């Protein structure tokens, strides 16, 4: 499973496609939320709660957060491999980058699980 993900998120074309697809998902979610707020200027807690109680809405939110997770993973990895390199900061770069990457992956996973916990009230 991890190997599959590693390979999947490592090739150039899949990275590129994932970044675009996840961007579309995030944009769609943003538009939806902003639109919902504009249509309901006097939003009440009940309305908001009802919306987020819908199974479809919860799936939409989860998919979006998953998209954020992928997007952040690929984007941040790109930043790390640009700046934390042997050429720029010396031989310790690979170790430092791996640690940072591991930390990044851990945080992203944590956020993802936290989202599930919130959405399904586990």
């Amino acid at each position, binding site marked *: 499973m991890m190997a599959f993900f590693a390979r999947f998120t*490592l090739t*150039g*074309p899949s*990275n*590129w*496609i994932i970044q675009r697809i996840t961007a579309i998902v995030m944009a769609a979610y943003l538009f939806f939320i902003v639109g919902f707020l504009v249509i309901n200027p006097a939003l009440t807690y009940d309305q908001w709660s009802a919306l987020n109680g819908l199974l479809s809405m919860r799936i939409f939110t989860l998919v979006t957060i998953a998209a954020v997770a992928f997007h952040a993973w690929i984007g941040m990895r790109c930043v790390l*491999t640009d700046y934390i390199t042997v*050429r720029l900061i010396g031989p310790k770069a690979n170790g430092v980058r791996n640690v940072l990457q591991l930390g990044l992956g851990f945080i992203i996973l944590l956020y993802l699980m936290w989202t599930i916990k919130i959405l399904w009230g586990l």
Partner: protein
Amino acid sequence: MLNVSIYRYNPEVDDEPYMQDFQFDTEGKDIMVLDVLEKLKIQDPSLVFRRSCREGVCGSDGVNISGKNGLACITPLSEAVKGNKLVIRPLPGLPVIRDLVIDMGQFYAQYEKIQPYMINNSPAPAIERLQSPEERAKLDGLYECILCACCSTACPSFWWNPEKFIGPSGLLQAYRFLADSRDTATEERLANLDDPFSVFRCHGIMNCVQVCPKGLNPTKAIGHIRNMLIRSAT
């Protein structure tokens, strides 16, 4: 008098590089930046720069002129001088050997990586391989590259990853062979480029397009390669 400020560094003498100021009399003429360098070299023969054709086709004298990469021989002072000051530095991002001369090893290594030669293993005909004018037109805007490195050394992605990102110049040449109807190694070429760095570190900043002295468009060529890679991956 024009104030000319030039990056100087001689590894045998200087601990670190410095900017040296010269006063230069243009005699009111709009000459080229290379003419200024040539005249200054008569004053100070230790000033070092590369030059050859002096007409913008050999690609020797790529330098950073008042902040923008370009060829000294075809950049007139009227374009280069800002507030009576001309600042000439080596192309950024690659190691400096001396003064305005950089070590282009990494740039050439990326060029060599893309297999910059025709691959067609079918037996050659007795005459030329035929190619229609339309097929040939696809090479326009690609084959004219003069390997001056103005584009690649203006590219932040190349600054960060000169060992792994091919860079705009190399990719333009990669596409020159992908686009050639006579070349049969499309799959092999794409396979060589299929990783997160070689092509996909291009983030469409387009500095390359802005500085290319031959008016070429590497970003567009990179877009074509990217689309070919995605199509072959899906």
